[in-house]
């Protein structure tokens, strides 16, 4: 009796979380999928089935393609930039510098801010008539021009800059932890063999950091795919819709334009994108691990 109870208790304790998780994650995914094949406009409408028409409409829209292109640019540069910058910062901080604690805190601080704050602050910094450009003009360098934020073909790079500023410190912290975990004797052995410092980093330390790199990429790439608040605060998708990303597209279509069906279709495409990137990566990394050891 007590044995069966003992084995039952953990299941009972986990059950509510499981049910909630199932209903609110997978249940809503299915609901969204259902909405995307209906003609829902202002309110959900389950009577009128339209098949893949919403998807057809979606891929016929110029704005959706702009959003996809922006997502590509943003993800690649944001993840890559934060990774490289974070790694460089971590390696430099790992050289036993003075006041490391203070420096580490300074670099990590942006992570404590929400994307809304980052977006608003950078909106002011990058605004040509009150930010960097004005500062340079006031200092006497009147030929200085930095108006990326207000040009439709460069505005997306401003989102990248703000994103990297926010997340590089986070990547740095992860890499630093990884670096600290490396056994000193390996490096000493390599030095004894006469390997140069860059070579040690490239051939020994970076490969050891691979699992850290994996988790960093995973965290950053899902942040980039669901980036919504940063874009909303920094550019609100503008100028025009030049910095629209799938998440802002979905929001505008579902909630302000009364096209819930179309919004649901775009949300499904976002889910598919995440799955297409993350699932194979997870699979290969998690499977490869035992062989490495």
């Amino acid at each position, binding site marked *: 009796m007590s044995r069966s109870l003992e084995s039952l208790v953990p299941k009972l304790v986990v059950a509510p979380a499981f049910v909630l998780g199932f209903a*609110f994650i997978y249940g*809503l995914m299915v*609901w*969204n999928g259902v909405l995307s094949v209906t003609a829902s*406009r*202002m*309110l*959900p409408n389950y009577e009128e089935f339209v098949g893949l028409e919403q998807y057809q409409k979606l891929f016929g829209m*110029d*704005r959706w393609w702009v959003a996809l292109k922006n997502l590509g640019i943003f993800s690649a540069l944001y993840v890559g930039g934060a990774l490289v910058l974070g790694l460089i910062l971590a390696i430099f901080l790992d050289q036993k510098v003075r006041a490391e604690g203070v420096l580490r805190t300074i670099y990590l601080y942006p992570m404590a801010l929400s994307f809304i704050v980052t977006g608003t602050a950078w*909106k002011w910094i990058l*605004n*040509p*008539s*009150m930010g960097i450009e004005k500062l340079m003009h006031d200092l006497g360098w009147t030929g200085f021009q930095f*108006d990326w*934020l*207000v040009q*439709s*073909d460069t505005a997306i790079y401003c989102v990248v800059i703000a994103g990297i500023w926010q997340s590089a410190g986070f990547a740095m912290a992860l890499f630093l932890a990884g670096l600290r975990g490396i056994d000193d004797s390996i490096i000493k052995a390599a030095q004894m063999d006469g390997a140069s410092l860059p070579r040690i980093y490239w051939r020994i330390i970076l490969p050891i950091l691979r699992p850290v790199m994996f988790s960093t990429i995973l965290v950053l790439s899902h942040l980039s795919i669901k980036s919504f608040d940063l874009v909303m605060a920094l*550019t*609100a998708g*503008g*100028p*025009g*819709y*030049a910095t629209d990303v799938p998440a802002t597209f979905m*929001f*505008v279509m579902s*909630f*302000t*334009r*009364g*096209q819930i069906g179309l919004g649901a279709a775009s949300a499904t495409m976002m889910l598919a994108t995440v799955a297409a990137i993350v699932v194979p990566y997870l699979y290969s990394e998690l499977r490869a691990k035992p062989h490495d050891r």
Partner: protein
Amino acid sequence: MLKISKLTAVLACVLAGTAAVAGQVEVLHYWTSGGEAKSVAELKKMMEAKGHVWKDFAVAGGGGDNAATVLKSRVVSGNPPAAAQIKGPAIQEWASEGVLANLDSVGKAEKWDSLLPKVVADVLKYKGSYVAVPVNVHRVNWLWGSAAALKKAGVASMPKTWDEFFVAADKIKKAGLIAVAHSGQNIWDFTTFESVVLGVGGARFYDDALVKLDQKALTSETMKKSLETFRRIKAYVDPAAPGRDWNLSTALVIQDKAAFQFMGDWAKGEFVAAGKVPGKDFLCAAAPGSANAYTFNVDSFAMFKLKDAGAQKAQGDLAATIMGTEFQQVFNLNKGSIPVRLNMSMDKFDDCAKLSSKDFVETAKVGGLVPSVAHGMAIKPAAEGAIKDAVSQFWSDDKISVADGMKNIAKAAATK
């Protein structure tokens, strides 16, 4: 994430809604800023004087988008408020869902048909019956000017034609001031665009192209000329415009740093709040070439079907009060707009409002009264959003040629 918050909103509303009292009128609105909140308080006072209980349901932000989202969840859960601030074709969409109440009995008793211009009444009717009641009229095709900035640049008066406008703008630019205080968000891009179309093509053309979305008009020579004029304006806009809020652009005119702004008459509220006097410190005129036309933006309350008899009675009284002369006057004095009711005394209003009222009555007679597309008065949200995108894209990207811009707009207009 969004879905979860929406669901919790539904739950919260279901719980809150169980405590309904007879004679109670619950009003969903997004008038939360200074002058607007004061106006709502007046309405509350009038309803309480009639013995009803006012339940305020204010949802701030997003130009009504947030309110609309909350409203959807309330209606889906079968617990709508008595009245909600809804305007334009959105009224028709709600009515076609079968959730709006028929107001014909109040409308007949109060003779609304004789008090409202037909174009305005049509917006408020679904299949010939009133389902919403109008509060005010905003004119959108205004050009605001700073008297000091114009004087400094040597511009004698507000421009009446586009040629005059560009001559004046050149002078202002030369004087080192911002000629046009623009706000680069798609609603304001379109506000300027529709004033240009109205000024270049006239009310008939505006109606064909932007309201009826006639493909022939959208690809005509007049449209081409409108887009060219629209793009010419951009040279007179300062580089900080993209993303700027409309009231910050108005502030530039108030501070005499900028000379002109294309904006609806809610801008007047900002001028007056800053202690400026119409006609002396700031000037109002119809946008160039559009003196005999009027783009209207009418705020209104749609009334929802209710089960409770006491609440229905309160709802009817609310509709009658909103259209009554007393409320129309008090509310619009606070808000900067004009009464939607024809033949009202305008003695207490300022010169800009008097001009607006005079033009409202006159253009209604000759067919120059047209709904504003930028402010959701004319076409369905899907097509409206798509054309706004196309126009904003044309405005912000100089590499798009006029011909391509015109093609994009025509394509967007076909969105269903």
